[in-house]
């Protein structure tokens, strides 16, 4: 299974901080300064293993291929402009609303959903055997739907706010 952790373990980080791969990759991308590139070039001439490693990295980099990006749909720009115009003036009031106001609104929304989910769990007065199935269904629904909705609400508010704050830098 592919490892999708966003950070490496300290051991990995230590191992990754050294070695020649990082320099070779920068060399491959033309990102080394002139002196460093010359020095690495000299090493490549006398170290066959290093030269082989460079060829392998180059092979991997070249092998990364994706299909050509589809051309923009016809009328895309006009449609976007129309949607923007519907939404109001550029940099309108919503954009200038202080971040804390929008964050507070998001917090209220998520808390409300959480409270609603809690009430739903408590409101199961029918304890008869026949009712067991429906109660289980309610709990299942809460885990799969309500919690998913809460997560969505979180990312559509807090996540966007954080990203927006970054973008305006």
């Amino acid at each position, binding site marked *: 299974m592919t490892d*999708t952790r966003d950070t490496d373990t300290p051991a990995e980080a230590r191992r990754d901080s050294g070695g020649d791969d990082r320099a070779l990759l920068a060399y491959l991308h033309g990102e080394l300064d002139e002196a460093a590139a010359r020095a690495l070039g000299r090493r490549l001439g006398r170290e066959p293993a290093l030269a082989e490693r460079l060829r392998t990295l180059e092979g991997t*980099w070249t092998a*990364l291929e994706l299909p050509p990006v589809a051309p923009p749909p016809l009328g895309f720009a006009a449609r976007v402009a129309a949607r923007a115009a519907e939404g109001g003036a550029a940099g309108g009031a919503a954009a200038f609303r202080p971040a804390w106001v929008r964050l507070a609104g998001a917090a209220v929304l998520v808390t409300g959903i959480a409270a609603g989910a809690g009430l739903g769990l408590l409101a199961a007065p029918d304890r008869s055997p026949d009712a067991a199935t429906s109660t289980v269904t309610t709990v299942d629904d809460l885990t799969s739907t309500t919690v998913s909705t809460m997560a969505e609400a979180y990312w559509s508010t807090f996540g966007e706010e954080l*990203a927006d704050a970054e973008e305006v830098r």
Partner: protein
Amino acid sequence: MPADSPADLDLELLRKTAAGDAAAFEELVERHQGRVLGVCERMLGDREDARDAAQEVFLKVYRKAGRFRPRARVTTWLYRIAVNHCLNQLRRRKVARFFSLGDPSPDGVEGRETPGVVRLDPVDPAPGLDVALEARRRWAATRAAIDGLPSSQRAVVVLAKFEGLSYDEIADVLGITTGSVASRLFRGMRRLEKALGEAAPAPQGSGGSRVS
């Protein structure tokens, strides 16, 4: 005064957009739609999602036009908004996938393809079919390998490999140091090497070859 360079023209269009000039905004979208769609498609791996994302990106540009600071290039700013939007989309997918129990789609999006499976246009059954099939195989392997990267590494790989940005430009877009760009790219490459190595067809006899 007419704009002297593409960057000047972008800035001029953005200023006019901020002043409510709809035609200027449309021209700005026309000029950059290919770039934004491209980065969204390569980040998200899905053409439909990319179109939706690109639309949202430009709407954000419209809303924030007045807050742009000219110390950065407009293209850098656009890339930043697009990449951040895509990273958000990827986080949402991850959260939705985590919470949607029993969802048959591993991507957490009904009716969408599995990550790593690239939806492609039908192949023309003409001469060169082998070449087309081989290209499809390489594209699918690359897509799967990129989808397996942590999002921060994915963004760096996409910007370097497919957008052709330098380390400095990527650092500007992502708001990180050039050293961090190099580190993420290097760690990403290790994962990509492993993934592509696993995806490569088994060698046939001694003449078999790896993905190259």
